[in-house]
């Protein structure tokens, strides 16, 4: 089962309601055979932009993240279920992956254009696209009159 991360924005509400909503969202993961690894509370925040959902305009939200493992076939169902929940303003499910090993290529990118690999490739393609020109004083290859 791959790991996922659910970023939740819940509506502004009283604490007991908030708890029940969070419980509901967590339980729906468990019902679908998932495992919850971590729940993080990022507190109540002013939203950076107003969001209108379920016929209401929200300017404040409670941020949560839930890390869980689940079968990939269940993710769509989960998202659909959360989209129907009135207390959830926004939900995003991201797949958690090991960050790829990156070797810094800045040095190569800062070289003068003629030394950069992508520029060399571009020049090569450009030369390929050029039409063959007939050389008039050469030994034919091939324009024996009538155009």
């Amino acid at each position: 089962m791959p790991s996922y991360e659910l970023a939740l924005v819940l509506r502004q509400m009283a604490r007991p309601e908030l708890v029940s909503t969070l419980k509901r969202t967590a339980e729906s993961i468990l019902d679908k055979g998932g495992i919850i690894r971590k729940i993080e509370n990022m507190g109540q925040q002013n939203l950076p932009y107003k969001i209108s959902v379920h016929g209401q305009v929200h300017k404040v939200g409670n941020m949560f993240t839930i890390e869980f493992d689940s079968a990939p076939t269940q993710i769509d169902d989960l998202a659909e279920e959360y989209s129907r929940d009135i207390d959830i303003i926004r939900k995003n499910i991201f797949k958690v992956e090991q960050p790829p090993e990156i070797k810094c290529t800045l040095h190569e990118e800062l070289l003068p254009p003629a030394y950069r690999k992508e520029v060399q490739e571009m020049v090569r393609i450009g030369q390929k696209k050029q039409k063959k020109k007939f050389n008039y004083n050469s030994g034919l290859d091939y324009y024996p009159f009538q155009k």
Partner: protein
Amino acid sequence: MSFRIISSLIQKGPIRILARTESTAAITPTIANSAQSDEPIDITNPFEKDRAQCILCRSNITPNYKNVKLLSQFQSPYTGRIYGRHITGLCKAKQEQVEKEIIKAQNCALMPTYHKSVEFLQDPKLFDPERPIRPHKY
């Protein structure tokens, strides 16, 4: 006139020769030790510059969408647009990661899209948008 010039040459001549013999005497033993003939010596290029690295690679940071304070440093305070690679000075891979994570954060309502969060406006600048590495497109 011509006689005078010649005499002056003769006067200068021996002094110059003396100077040359002295300098060659000082250098020749070291060269003779390092290489027998006139062949070029095999050494690494002494003028080669150090390998440049971007800020994120240097401190080994992988950007995450929850790290809003870091991500907002790559955002314009005026328009909320993500600065390009010619301004941020990041390598291609890191720039792509940063852009992805910023968009993720914006979708999760953690980051504004049309401006920079007010609490991060005083943050130290990582780069100067007015002095890009390559000229602006506009």
